[in-house]
């Protein structure tokens, strides 16, 4: 998809004025964080599991080449095939090749952020193959031709009415006067439509929450069971995953599963957790005849060893979005690409470039809430600051901002000059702001657009302290009851 990240400010402004979006974000803000807190509280070892999960991924990243080789060997041993793809274009081409070979005209898909990252749907359509999203949220946004606004709840930005309107508009073969304003009715309608698609699909395309080196399996986690119908019914199963999804053992996978759903939705476990291993064996009753893994790099190996290395621990749980006050203000689409929230603000510049996504690491108060809930203990604020450092070093802070900062820093590191000038400035401002506050001040537009500015109180604290009203130490005076 064409990123709109350069328009972040305009996107954000529009999002703030979008009533249904704000209502949806309000609901999200109440629901997920509360459920996560409850789930964490129910599990005494939750914090310890977070440490373990972090350590597992750190170990994998240290030994990624070895685990990838082990994993491939296992996949092949089970009769599957791994397609190594460096770029999004390579991955699209690999998928198309497999589809062509299978003579596919219809591909069912379960939710995959990598699928979004490589924009596989548009590509398949351009090549005459129909992609069908089977996750309800993804199905809705596919009908609306929108990108997901949340990594685990792609249609979270929509109200029930908006979904109903979409169904009425797109499902034109059905009675336009049917009653579908209830969640149940919407669900039934989507289910009925999808049922036929499941049965008719030639290829099933799924993502992977993890890839297990020990067994060559991929793990699929859903609440709808759609992934199971996606991989189990068609003749060909394609798994699309980025290479940092690997974990060493089944045991490690279960450790991460224990923090994944709790962090994401506050469930102890997602409703469906599936381990898929290779194609159907002779004794199996069903399953795909072919099993392919399209393993995507798309910039990940460049992150290894960089200041963004730890971002590769991410398991895409969405907790950092759910708890982010910026995300909760503007929603996912404002970020302008397939990821969003704190993880998006770190990841997107890595994947599509700082030039395009430069706003994202800056649009944060670095409040630290995301890091405090991230199951993988990823230091997201630190990495946002790292992007700012790169931008500053590359001279992207903007000339005015950079010059102003430089002048200010020059002053701050010269205490005598600082004291002198601040004393003058504070006195002058104190005179001007005799009502105690300013409604407007030159150069303070960003501040006074929204709020009043308290006026300073006459002289600086340090000067008052050292001079004291009668020239002696204010420490003594305060003890004697003097008030500023």
């Amino acid at each position: 998809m064409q990123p709109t990240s350069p328009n972040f400010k305009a996107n954000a402004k529009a999002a703030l004025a979008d009533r249904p979006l704000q209502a949806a974000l309000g609901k999200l803000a109440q629901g997920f964080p509360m459920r996560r807190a409850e789930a964490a509280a129910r599990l005494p070892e939750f914090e310890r599991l977070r440490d373990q999960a972090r350590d597992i991924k750190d170990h994998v990243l240290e030994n990624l080449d070895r685990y990838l080789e082990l994993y491939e060997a296992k996949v092949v041993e089970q009769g599957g095939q791994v397609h190594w793809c460096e770029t999004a274009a390579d991955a699209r081409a690999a998928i198309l090749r497999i589809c062509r070979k299978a003579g596919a005209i219809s591909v069912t898909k379960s939710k995959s952020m990598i699928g979004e990252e490589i924009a596989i749907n548009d590509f398949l359509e351009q090549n005459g193959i129909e992609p069908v999203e089977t996750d309800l949220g993804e199905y809705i946004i596919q009908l609306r031709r929108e990108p997901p606004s949340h990594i685990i709840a792609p249609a979270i930005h929509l109200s029930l009415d908006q979904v109903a309107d979409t169904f009425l508009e797109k499902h034109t073969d059905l009675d336009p006067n049917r009653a579908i304003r209830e969640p149940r009715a919407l669900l039934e309608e989507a289910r009925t439509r999808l049922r036929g698609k499941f049965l008719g699909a030639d290829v099933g395309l799924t993502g992977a929450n993890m890839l297990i080196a020990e067994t060559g399996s991929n793990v699929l986690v859903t609440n709808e069971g759609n992934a199971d119908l996606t991989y189990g019914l068609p003749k060909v199963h394609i798994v699309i995953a980025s290479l940092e999804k690997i974990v060493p053992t089944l045991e490690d996978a279960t450790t991460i599963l224990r923090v994944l759903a709790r962090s994401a939705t506050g469930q102890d476990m997602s409703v469906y957790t599936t381990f898929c291993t290779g194609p159907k064996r002779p004794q199996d009753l069903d399953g795909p005849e072919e099993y392919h893994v399209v393993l995507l790099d798309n910039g990940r190996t460049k992150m290894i060893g960089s200041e963004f290395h730890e971002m590769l621990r991410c398991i895409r749980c969405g907790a950092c979005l759910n708890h982010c006050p910026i995300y909760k203000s503007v929603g996912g689409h404002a970020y302008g690409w397939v990821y969003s929230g704190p993880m998006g603000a770190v990841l997107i510049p890595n994947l599509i470039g700082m030039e395009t996504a430069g706003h994202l690491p800056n649009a944060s108060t670095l409040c630290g809430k995301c890091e405090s809930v991230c199951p993988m203990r990823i230091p997201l604020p630190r990495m946002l600051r790292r992007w700012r450092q790169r931008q500053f070093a590359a001279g992207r802070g903007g000339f005015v901002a950079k010059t102003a900062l430089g002048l200010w820093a020059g002053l701050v590191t010269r205490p005598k000059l600082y004291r002198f000038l601040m004393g003058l400035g504070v006195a002058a401002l104190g005179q001007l702001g005799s009502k105690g506050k300013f409604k407007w001040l030159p150069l303070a537009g960003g501040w006074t657009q929204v709020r009043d500015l308290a006026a300073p109180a006459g002289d600086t604290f340090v000067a008052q302290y050292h001079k004291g009203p009668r020239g002696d130490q204010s420490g003594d005076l305060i003890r004697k009851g003097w008030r500023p």
Partner: protein
Amino acid sequence: MNDPTQPNVGLFATCLVDLMRPQVGFAAVKLLEAAGCRVSVPEAQTCCGQPAYNSGDEPDSIAIAKQVIETFSEFDYIVVPSGSCGGMIKRHYPEMFEHDSGWLAKATALAAKTHELLSFLTDVRNYSPTGVSYAGRATYHDSCSSLREMQVKAQPRKLLGAVAGLTIAEGNEAETCCGFGGLFCVKYPDISESMVDAKIDDIVKTGADTLLAGDMGCLMNISGRLQRRGIAVRARHAAEVLAGMGDLPAIGEPAKGRD
């Protein structure tokens, strides 16, 4: 005068207190002395460098950090009436010198003795105010850095619990960012506005007449917006109330004797 049992405390007032709200500095001095400390206010102090650091300006933040380290190394403790500037010294200075072992040692030593004011009073000095009163219903805003970088949560509530006449009404969103974020609030004013408005709605829900916090940045942001919206909640630094200075004009109110 020079009681050897009294720790030598260097007060880092922070640039916002220094320039915008001197009475917080005086309140801090008073509280620290009441808690049995010898207090110094080095004249060479300016700013902790956070605006530069959070703007990605590493060279300038390093220069500023070195100056703060040199100014304050001589003290037993460095006390800061702000979790944000305290967190800068305690958490971020060592981070900055990751690759400079000489300065890393100095930064780590300084970090180890740096404390946020309110938590220093309770955790290190076991101090509790006596004979202080404040008639009002206050809600306490946990600044992000106080809460998450300096682990300040119970300490201010414990101190304020000893103030006669003061009730604390907790907001559901006490721990949510107010949208200040240093330069964030001027770079992204629309988002900042929506965040500070959410904060204010939560404050109003508590029915409080006073907003207390331990960070001037948040206080100026929230009080500025309260005044712009015409909401009569007064904002003060918690240290002012604890030091018995809760009757002085609140943030953004005209000084007495002026019109």
